[in-house]
Structure formats: C-alpha cells, structure tokens
C-alpha cells in the first residue's frame, strides 16, 4: 500500500504538512488571468514557479498554458526585480503582443519587497506599454492563504480597471469563482436563457476548452475583454459565487464603483442553483423561463428516481472551501452523509458553514480548515466512508481504502471530461448525480454475490 505509513492514531502536528490539500497562490492568479481575452499571465519570480504552474494547469486542462516569467536570478534577488519586470513587460508586448499582461508575484518577489504598482506605473510612464494595452497585477505571496486566495486576488485585480461613468449599462457582473471552462459556459447559457445580459469574469471558456484547430494560438478567442472589465463599473449589480473565490472582487467593485453586490454559494446542486437563478431574476427584473424550470424538474426527478441509493451513504470530501460548501449542501439534500471534510485553504468561516449545513445530522462531522490529506486519511481509517469526492490527489486513499472515488475539483490529472461537461446549474447537478450513482452502483455490482447480483437496479 502506497500510504502504508498513515497510522490510525491521530497525533497533533504543528510544524508540518503531509500530503497537502492546497497549493500556493500564484497558480490561482495564473488561472484567473487566462480568463481575460488576449491576456498573458506573468509570474514575477524564479522560472521554476512559472514552469510548475504551467505544468499543473496543462495537466488539468489539457491545453497549452502560456505564461511569462521574470526569470529571477541571484542578482535580481539581491537588488530587486524592477529591472526584470520592466524588461519583461517590454519584451512581452514586443514579441507576444497580448492585449494585457496580468502580473502576479511569488514568495520571492514579495519577500524582496518589489512594489508592483510602482513598477507598473513606471512602465506605463516610460512608454513600454503600448497605447490601448494594459498591465494589471495582484500580490500573491505564497506563504499566505492558498491557490484559492491567489485566484481571488487576481479577480480583484481585474476590477481595478473598472470605471464608474455614472450611467448604468443594465448588465450584471457574474463572478463564477474557480470553476471549469464548461461551468463558465453553462453560467452564460443560463443567463442567456433568462435574458439577463452579464459580464462573466474571469471567463476561461473558449480559452481552455478550445477545439483542435491545427493552429497554436497564444491567445484563443475566449475570455472577458478589457472593455467589458472597464464597463463592469457601470453594471447594475454583481453576483459573486463563492465567498473565498469571488467576494473580494465584488466588494471592491461595490466600494470603488458603487455596484451593489450579493455573495452567493457556487451554483453546485439544487438549492445553490435555485438561489443563483433567483438572484439573477431579481437583480435583472426578469422571469425564469420554462426551459430552466424544466431542467430543474429533471434534476429533482432524477433525485427521486435514485434516492434509495443515496440514503445515508457516508462521504469524505476534500478540496476548496467554496466547492465543498456547495457540495455539502447538495449531498445533504439528497440524503447522503458528508462525514469528513478537509480543505487546505485557511478561513474559519468554512468550519462554521459546514457545521450549519450538517447541524441536523445525527453524527459528529469532522471538518478542518488548513488540514491535509494525511489527516483526511486518518479520519477515514477511523470511520470508513462509502464515497470519496475530491481532486486526483485522493486516488491514493481511494485505492488503499478501496473507496469509490468521484474526481471533482482541481486538479484532475488522470481523467478527462471536466473541461467539457459542467457540474454547475441543474444540468451540472444531473451530471454529478449520474457520476455518484454510477460509482455507488458499480460498487454494488462488484460486491454483490452472484446470487444477489441483479440485472435491474
């Protein structure tokens, strides 16, 4: 067994993470930046950071991931990275010709103390930023928060370009959070069905789920445009999906441009999707079309058809707070029992929300912010579960403990489809149910004796 070293007894650890359930900020900033049209993310630090982030994103999205780096050397680390960043900006605009460069920092440049805003302003003043082009940035020190924090910081960075002209444009900003390109597509489809004009940002659909074109494009068709981002300051409101991923950006728009915002859970599962659709309806003053009602009805129908299989099945989940909160609510609503929850991302609110969502359940739920996969495994050893939900890093545990495993979240390194099939919205709920049910029934078919083994389930 690969994880043969994991003991059942849980002892206090204070200085050590074993098998992390998070990674560092810059990769989140890089993913978010890819959701801007014509944007080249730029990593202000050593080459390795950029290479690791590009590799990790490539392995998950199966698409070319382009990002530049300041290529820090010892000199830059001693004297500061200003020269590197100025030169990088000039080089990038000259050779790769993006519309916008989105700079994020690393632990290295943060510790040196590079002032990115000042360097950016200097670049603009000295004329290395061509007319009509942009440099946006955010700070992403790797020793604070997690990849989710970095994502949130870059989305907030996007809102810095928003301007308030004093005239509302009738559009609604929707901040989807760190979800798949397919999820972003699905959110746009739902909004279109409801006749609500939205600005979705970031929007990686069309960027990271593109067709095979026979061409390598540094900057594919998709992504929110800089113009749309500027105009987000004139929107009638903002819906931010996910407290961890999206709330900071929404609040920043509220403060800076007086765009009122509402922070919702990510739209996974029945109830969270209900709230999202309702919020869209209210903010835009439209009504919910029959087509969406029908999709909702189908989801409820499938839950009813299969509810006896979900009944009191225990689930262990790990991943990012916003996803886990929505998923926990969904699981509870279909009568499954979330039993152990771990996120590596800090934020005490997480434990509180999970406790609220599971308060009525007749058992103690294990929940940990800033936890790791080692702890999750120990919990599972002490109290086994029927299903494990999380990113690919759960596969070791799933194998060792022989648990059905639903791959969901980031990163997924060993399966495909997540780029193309949404799990948000009612349609996404159907897909989640199909997958969960498939796993549970495959297990039943595998474990049933020949006598019990049945054709019809």
């Amino acid at each position, binding site marked *: 067994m690969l994880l043969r070293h994991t003991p059942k007894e849980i002892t206090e650890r204070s200085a050590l993470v074993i098998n992390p359930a998070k990674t560092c900020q810059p990769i989140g900033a890089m993913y978010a930046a890819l959701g801007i049209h014509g944007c080249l993310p730029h990593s202000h*630090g050593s080459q390795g950071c*950029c290479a690791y982030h590009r590799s990790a994103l*490539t392995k998950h999205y199966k698409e070319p991931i382009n990002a530049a780096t300041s290529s820090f050397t010892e000199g830059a680390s001693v004297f500061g990275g200003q020269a590197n960043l100025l030169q990088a900006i000039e080089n990038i605009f000259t050779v790769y010709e993006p519309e916008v460069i989105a700079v994020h920092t690393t632990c290295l440049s943060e510790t040196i103390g590079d002032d990115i805003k000042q360097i950016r302003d200097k670049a603009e003043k000295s004329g290395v930023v061509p007319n009509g082009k942009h440099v946006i940035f955010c700070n992403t020190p790797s020793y604070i928060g997690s990849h989710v924090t970095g994502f949130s910081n870059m989305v907030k960075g996007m809102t810095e370009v928003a301007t308030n002209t004093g005239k509302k444009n009738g559009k609604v900003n929707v901040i989807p959070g760190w979800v798949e390109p397919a999820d972003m597509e699905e959110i746009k489809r739902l909004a279109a069905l409801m006749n609500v004009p939205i600005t979705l940002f970031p929007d990686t659909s069309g960027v990271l789920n593109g067709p095979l074109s026979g061409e390598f494009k540094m900057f594919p068709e998709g992504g929110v445009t800089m113009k749309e981002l500027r105009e987000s300051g004139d929107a009638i409101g903002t819906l931010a999906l996910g407290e961890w991923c999206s709330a900071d950006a929404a609040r920043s728009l509220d403060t800076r441009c007086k765009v009122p915002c509402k922070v919702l859970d990510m739209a996974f599962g029945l109830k969270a999707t209900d709230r999202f659709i309702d919020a869209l309806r209210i903010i835009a003053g439209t009504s919910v079309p029959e087509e969406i009602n029908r999709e909702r009805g189908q989801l409820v129908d499938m839950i009813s058809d299969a509810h006896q299989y979900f009944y009191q099945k225990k689930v262990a989940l790990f991943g990012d707070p916003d996803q886990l909160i929505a998923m926990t609510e969904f699981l509870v609503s279909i009568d499954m029992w979330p039993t152990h929850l771990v996120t590596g991302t800090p934020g005490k609110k997480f434990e509180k929300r999970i406790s609220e969502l599971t308060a009525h359940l007749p058992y103690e739920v294990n929940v940990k912010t800033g936890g790791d996969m080692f702890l999750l495994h120990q919990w599972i050893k002490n109290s086994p579960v029927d299903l494990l939900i999380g990113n690919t890093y759960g596969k070791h545990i799933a194998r060792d403990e022989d648990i059905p495993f639903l791959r969901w979240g980031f990163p997924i390194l060993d399966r495909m489809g997540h780029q193309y099939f949404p799990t948000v919205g009612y349609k996404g709920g159907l897909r989640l149910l199909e997958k969960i049910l498939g796993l549970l029934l495959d297990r039943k078919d595998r474990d049933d004796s020949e006598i019990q083994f049945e054709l019809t389930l």
Partner: protein
Amino acid sequence: MTETAKAITPEIIACPEESAALPIEHAAIFEERKDQIHRIGEGAFSMACNRDSLAGAVSQRACVFCGSRVVLYPIADALHLVHGPIGCAAYTWDIRGSLSSGPELHRLSFSTDLQELDVVFGGEKKLAKALDELIPRYEPKAAFVYSTCIVGLIGDDLAAVCKAASQRHGIPVIPVQSEGFKGNKREGYLAACKAMRTLVGTGDISDISKLSVNIMGDFNLAGETWIIKDYLTRMGIQTVAGITGDGRVDDLRRAHGAGLNIVQCSGSTQDLAKMMRDDFGIPFLRVSWIGIEDVAESLYAIAEHFELTQPELATGPDGGIVERTAALVRDELAALMPQLKELRRDLEGKRAAVYVGGSFKAFSLVKAFRHLGMEVVIVGSQTGTEEDYRELAAICAPGTIVVDDANPLELSAFIKEKDVDIFVGGVKERPIAFKLGVGFCDHNHERKIALEGFVGMLNFAKEVHASVMSPIWQFVPRRELRNSPVNTGEEA
C-alpha cells in the same frame, strides 16, 4: 540592470519557399535569441547556451529546486522535506513514475508550509520541529531537506538545523541548497550531487566485486533501471547503486565500492561522478540507454573497460565479458529488429521534432528515429551546452533547426514550417503538439512505458507508431487542406 534585462527588437523569420503553399504565420523571434537558434547549413555554427532566459520569455525551463528535486526524488527510503511555502512541495508530490522495488516514502509530500510569520521571524524552529515529528514517525534511512527561494532570502541556517537534527536522531539529515533563483536546473543537479556526496563513502564495501558499477543518471521511470541492471547482470557485472533510480540510502553509502560509474543524462549526476573520480578514484563512462547503437555501444564500452582493467575477473569459464556482451546484444537485436521493421514500414519518411530537457537524449533520439526511417528536423533542449549543440548539428541533416531554451511560439512556428509528424517533448509541449494536429511522444518524466534499452527502443517505436499513425490527424484543418483534392491535384 541585470544581465537578463536587455533591450530587444523583433525580427521576422521568413519561411522557406517549399512550404509557401501552406498558410504559415511568420514567427517573431527575440533578437537576443537569434544566437540560440541555428539552421544547419546556413552559416558557420555558433550558439550561445547555458544563458539565463530573457525576462518576459515564455520559457519552458524550470528552477534550481526543480533540478534537485527530480534528481533526489527516486531515493525511496529517504525522507524528502521541502522547507518553504506549500507550492514547492505540492507541485513535486508523486510527480513521476520513478518506481521502487521496496519502500515508497518518496511518493509522499512533506512541507513546512511556511507562513507569513515564519517569513518574518525565520523558519528554523519550524523546520527542526518538522524533522522531530517526521523522523521518529517514518524512520527513514536519511532525510533530505530542500531549501526554496524564500529560505535563501530569510537566511535560515539550513545546515545548522540539519546537523542538530542529525545528532538528535542518529540519521544523516542532509541540506540541499536548492534556492530556486540561483539558476536553472543545472545548478539544482549540482546541489543534489553535493547532497548525495555526503552519503557516499560511509558504508561497508567489503563484499563488493571489482566487476561492479553504479547506474547513474537514470531514474527508473517505468522500471528502466531494472532493464539496464538485467543487462549488466547478464554481463556478469554487479550493480551497487542506482543513482538514483530505485535508489536507497545504504546503496549510496556503498557507492564508492563500485569499480566504475556509468553516467547517463547530460547534467544530472555527472557532477557526482566527477567528485567520486576525484575523491575515490572511480572512473566514469558516459552512456546512453536510448536507441540501438547507443545502448549497444554503452554496453560494449562497459565490457571493454572491465576487460582492460580487470582482465582476470572479466574472463570466466564461459568466455570473456566482451563475448558475453556480444551475445547479449545479438540476442536482443534478433528479437528486436524484425518487430522494428514492421513498424518502420509505416513510419518511413515521416518527420520528427525533438525538444527535451537534456541534450544527451536529443542525440540518442536523432539516431533512434533513423531506425524508424524518420528524420529529425527540429532538435533542441532546455539546458544543452554549445558543445552539445555543435555535436548535434554534426549528426543532423542540413536544414535541421537546432534550438536552445525555446518558447511555445518558436516551437509552433518551427513545427508548422517543417510540417512534422511527431513531437517528442515533455508535459508542457504535449498540448501544443496536439493543437497543431501533430503526434506526440512523452520522453520526459511522465512517460508511462520504458523507453530505455533494446526493449525500450521497441516500446518507443510502438509509441511513435501509435501517435503518428492515428487516424485523428486527418481531421486536423491544416491537414484537411493539404489532403484536399485541390492541393493534391487528384481532382484533375
């Protein structure tokens, strides 16, 4: 301004006329990068290499930490603790199929997960504590503690913490000075070698035959070290240590008992081989386990070395070591060649692009492709030296593009210009190839099948065949255009 920060002007590289019928975008190349690209037959050979990447380049290169981590990673019974923020540990967790025949401690991820307060007040105490928690729990044979960018900056005394921990726990706790910003992977290889050197020479070597080697620069991806070890056993040679494929701490301690170091991979373990030559008088041979000639030549070179230096041991009742090696090569080739011939029938005339981490592999691949009837038209690496590229240029055909530290734009422009059928590279190159509608073979850390040895050549041929001959490529728009009746003239 630092060395990397220089002004640039763009330059348009014109496409050669023979491909003018196809729509090809002109590729802008950094002026500074012109001397890192060479077209064989166009002017005298001159390339600037091992140069820092330009600031702002979308480089495919990595950092010092990455170099150290990949080299030491396969040592399966050691603890690998990454001292730094979480990312460096997260991205190197269970990264590649460096197989172990026993312990698998190397496949777990350990990090001190440095937080803001640690950065302000220093991480030494946290590190010491982490080691105190880990060592009794896992009882490793040794611990490697990796330094990351930030540790270099905040000035934690890694060596002192490791030394104290070593005394407390009675195992070697070895600092790896792999601060990311100190350079590229090459510096990381050196840091790893220095770390391993502290182990070499500390074990008992009384039972080691003089007819023995360390297999260096091979990481047992998909069990490749075992293939080589099997050949050596058949030649009558004992393997002391895999450095680091299927690596063990105790083997490293005894590595100085080997009669010869056989070193693959341009940079990764050559520094250690040199240290062992200087400190223990162990000679080393550069070898390559990829392709037919290179594998055969490597085995013969090893045999000849022992025949020369240990004539009495090298000759047994069943003939000398060279004869045994010849028999081995003959048997292997007899099994391999008919199967290769089958695959070659389809592959004849196809074109390949090779962009790999180290240049040694590029050499072997150029030769390996010849056995498939294929021509390498683009060849490059992240970390080659000028000498490497000069030699590469000498064995490739005129018109071949030789490139150092390429970026995706360059690679994609070259691939289209040369209209290649398969790209050999690593994880970041795979989707670029596929977007362009070109086959792909992962010859890097993440390969899933053994590509070394004679059996590796067959696996390689199968993998190339599987990708090049896939029917999917006929649906690629660029090729649909080329295959359409208008362009092929079949309509008339």
